[in-house]
């Protein structure tokens, strides 16, 4: 069955950073989804003109509630409207879920490495949340690259001490006091630490800007990870 367009009412908009927002919608008839999937969002202007963009789902399936992460793109046609203008209580249209490859399924039992660049953390945090719902003993490792401490999404969730989640944040421009790592892009060393604790067949999910994903995936294959275990999602 092809996904159909469904009306989606904005219930809540929460800040994640100074500009990034989580948008929570109620979508009657939502069919559910897997962590890592995305949706198409359709906006319609008064003259009937429509614009569609894809956004990652930020939380696992939860009835008719759907959460998206939106990082407004300067001069963007859709993201600034979603991040700042769409009134709470108003509707857009959603189509999904989409993407059956960049997904984590609860029956997966191996430990997992997630590597996020900037807003690429959104589909990965959906996997973190899905993993929390089940009684798995496998650990999740999240390596998260951001410019500076103010750019961290989901800071509370990632710092809440879940023993099955190992979080390491890498700052590229400015680190918080006492971080112990000089600011800079993710290195082979960072990734080498990230893959410690994985099994040979453990899946690695990498999401972020194209240059970030290219660099990380190259380093991971150089470290000897099987390319078939590395799943990527790129934007920009």
């Amino acid at each position: 069955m092809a996904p159909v367009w469904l009306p989606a009412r904005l219930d809540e908009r929460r800040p994640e950073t100074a500009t990034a927002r989580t948008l929570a919608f109620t979508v009657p008839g939502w069919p559910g989804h897997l962590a890592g999937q995305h949706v198409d969002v359709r906006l319609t202007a008064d003259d009937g003109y429509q614009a569609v963009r894809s956004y990652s789902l930020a939380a696992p399936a939860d009835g008719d509630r759907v959460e998206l992460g939106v990082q407004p793109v300067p001069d963007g046609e859709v993201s600034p409207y979603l991040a700042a203008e769409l009134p709470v209580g108003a509707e857009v249209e959603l189509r999904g879920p989409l993407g059956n490859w960049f997904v984590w399924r609860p029956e997966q039992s191996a430990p997992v490495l997630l590597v996020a660049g900037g807003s690429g953390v959104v589909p990965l945090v959906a996997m973190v949340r899905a993993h929390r719902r089940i009684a798995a003993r496998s650990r999740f490792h999240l390596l998260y690259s951001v410019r500076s401490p103010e750019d961290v999404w989901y800071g509370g969730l990632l710092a809440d001490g879940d023993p099955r989640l190992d979080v390491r944040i890498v700052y590229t421009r400015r680190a918080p006091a006492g971080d112990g790592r000089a600011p800079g892009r993710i290195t082979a060393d960072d990734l080498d630490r990230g893959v410690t604790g994985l099994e040979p067949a453990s899946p690695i999910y990498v999401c972020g800007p194209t240059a970030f994903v290219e660099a990380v995936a190259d380093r991971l294959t150089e470290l000897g990870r099987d390319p078939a275990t590395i799943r990527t999602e790129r934007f920009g």
Partner: protein
Amino acid sequence: MTSFSPGFHGRGRRLAERLPPGQYPTESFPVLSAGPTPKVPTEGWAFTVTTEHGETRSWSWDDMMALPQQETVHDIHCVTRWSKFDTRWRGVALDAFLDGVETEAEHVVVTSYGGYTTNLPLADLRGGRAWVAHTYDGFPLSPEHGGPARLLVPHLYLWKSAKWVRGLRLTLQDEPGFWESVGYHAYGDPWREQRTWGD
């Protein structure tokens, strides 16, 4: 007056005739790939056509470059909804590889270095509508965009234009490729918005 997205104005209406439904124009060239980018040297590169009888023909990089080269300009359309106008490519029309191949097959599985596959009707690769492209906008095609060579089938969504192409397998039955197995449409005509199963 719509009940959706109050206060949304949007832009880009003047491009309406040139954009397939549900697409937006971009100036950049986004990269969509399911995994790491394979690094494929031109030394040792080969493009192989395999018929349903298992007969093969192969071209080395130099063989391919010795075939008639074409400059071709197209609008390209990605299922993730961006379209890019007037992209300029250089490569070899698939007709040059398929000429004289004896086959009853009506379907093709395109194979790539790195393991990617995609399926399409053989007819869509004939008639000057598809190329093995090695040059983009005057420069060698970069690895993240499918270099050293990718398939270019601009009349279908871009996932059919397999990056890092290594061959064609002609088949009697239609066999779903990588994305076609996980939800994408078997044919993928952007003008009919054939994005996913059932579209």
